């Protein structure tokens, strides 16, 4: 698993890997929002946690089709499948790389971009914390979607159609944690729900991802 992790991380960070792309996309969406809704401070600071969450979700979505598509095209995926590691481990490694290259940078960048949206500084911790807790679920669910569409040429749009409905519960609880954090309300319940969804997804979905990969590689 470790060599696979190192290989994928290296591929993602070297030229053409698109490492910073998700982050730049995140920035651009955040910059576009005030153009859309107007520059009034109170509106922006009210919708900031939600916008940050939706933008992070879209940025995570953007890089999903790279998870398996390139490996599938040049046949690496078949080699990996015949290697003496279970496909479940491969699924976990791929999700982890996706999270390290998108979820983690997005989490770190979110409070800084929150400044652009007049996010109340009291909410920085809640926004970053909810993203830290929620983005692993986004990566794992997205890996499952990427595995489903690996055999489909130009499957990017299909992938979004499949994955976005699956993102709904994570988004609801994640944005709720962020919103309550900004408003300085009690946030234990949504926080626990978000943690539960992430834990459940991380524990169970790699099995579904591996099963789907086996079906696709048959």
């Amino acid at each position, binding site marked *: 698993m470790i060599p696979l992790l190192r290989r994928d991380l290296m591929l993602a960070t070297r030229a053409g890997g698109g490492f910073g792309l998700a982050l730049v996309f995140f920035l651009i969406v955040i910059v576009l929002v005030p153009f859309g809704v107007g520059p009034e401070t109170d509106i922006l600071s009210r919708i900031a946690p939600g916008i940050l969450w939706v933008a992070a979700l879209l940025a995570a979505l953007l890089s999903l089709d790279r998870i398996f598509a390139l490996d599938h095209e040049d046949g690496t995926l078949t080699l990996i499948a015949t290697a003496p590691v279970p496909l479940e481990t491969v699924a976990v490694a791929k999700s982890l790389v996706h999270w390290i290259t998108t979820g983690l940078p997005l989490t770190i960048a979110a409070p800084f971009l929150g400044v652009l949206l007049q996010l109340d500084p009291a909410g920085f911790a809640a926004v970053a914390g909810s993203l830290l807790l929620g983005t692993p679920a986004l990566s794992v669910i997205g890996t499952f979607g990427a595995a489903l569409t690996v055999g489909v040429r130009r499957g990017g749009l299909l992938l979004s159609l499949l994955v976005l409905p699956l993102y709904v519960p994570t988004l*609801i609880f994640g944005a709720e944690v962020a919103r309550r954090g900004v408003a300085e309300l009690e946030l234990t319940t*949504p926080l626990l729900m978000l943690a539960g969804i992430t834990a459940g997804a991380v524990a169970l979905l790699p099995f579904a991802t591996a099963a789907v990969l086996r079906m696709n590689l048959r």
Partner: protein
Amino acid sequence: MWEYANPKRFMGWTAPVLPWAFGLSAVCLTIGLIWGFFFTPVDFRQGSTVKIIYLHVPSALMAINAWVMMLMASLIWLVRRHHVSALAAKAAAPVGVAMTLIALATGAIWGQPMWGTYWAWDPRLTSFLILFLFYLGYMALWAAIEDPDTAADLTSVLCIVGSVFAFLSRYAVNFWNQGLHQGASLSLDKEKNVADVFYQPLLFAIGGFVILFFALVLLRTRTEIRKRRIGALQRREG
């Protein structure tokens, strides 16, 4: 029981059943809708708009049950590899989408005079919209993959995982927003049901919708089996 899932046997028993199913659903729907629309009293507060319940409730019920049926058919396909089962799941999806759309549309038409808005981000409405998206994704995946067995496998897994997330979403939206929608019109707990005058024609309408759903799914499954056979013949002819 499994022998009826053999494609040839399936074609055999569905052929005579289909006209009866369509006939029975037509009878039930005619009785339920005419009784409901013309021979029930007008509601004290809602006026005649209440009568949309005879379309709204059965279609909403079938929208969810169609997904449950797809889930079971997917499980049967994954476990027992009955091709008819996978095709039945495929056949049920467009019917389920139609039911979801009818439920959403009738709800919007009723909501405008009653709630003063066609749409509200109410938990029930929102979860139906999400269910609609799940149906679309499921159908898109079927359409995107060429090999029929791989398509059946992948859509089955999507259906199972999707069910879990649809269920989660259903309760997540409850948490997210307070509801405008009234509670269930029907339940096994008799106390909570709508009044008997509305209840009896509603049962006919629901029965009609259930039988109509089964008839449509059988018909569409037969079409899928024929399509599969034509494909096989064409491949043999080269």
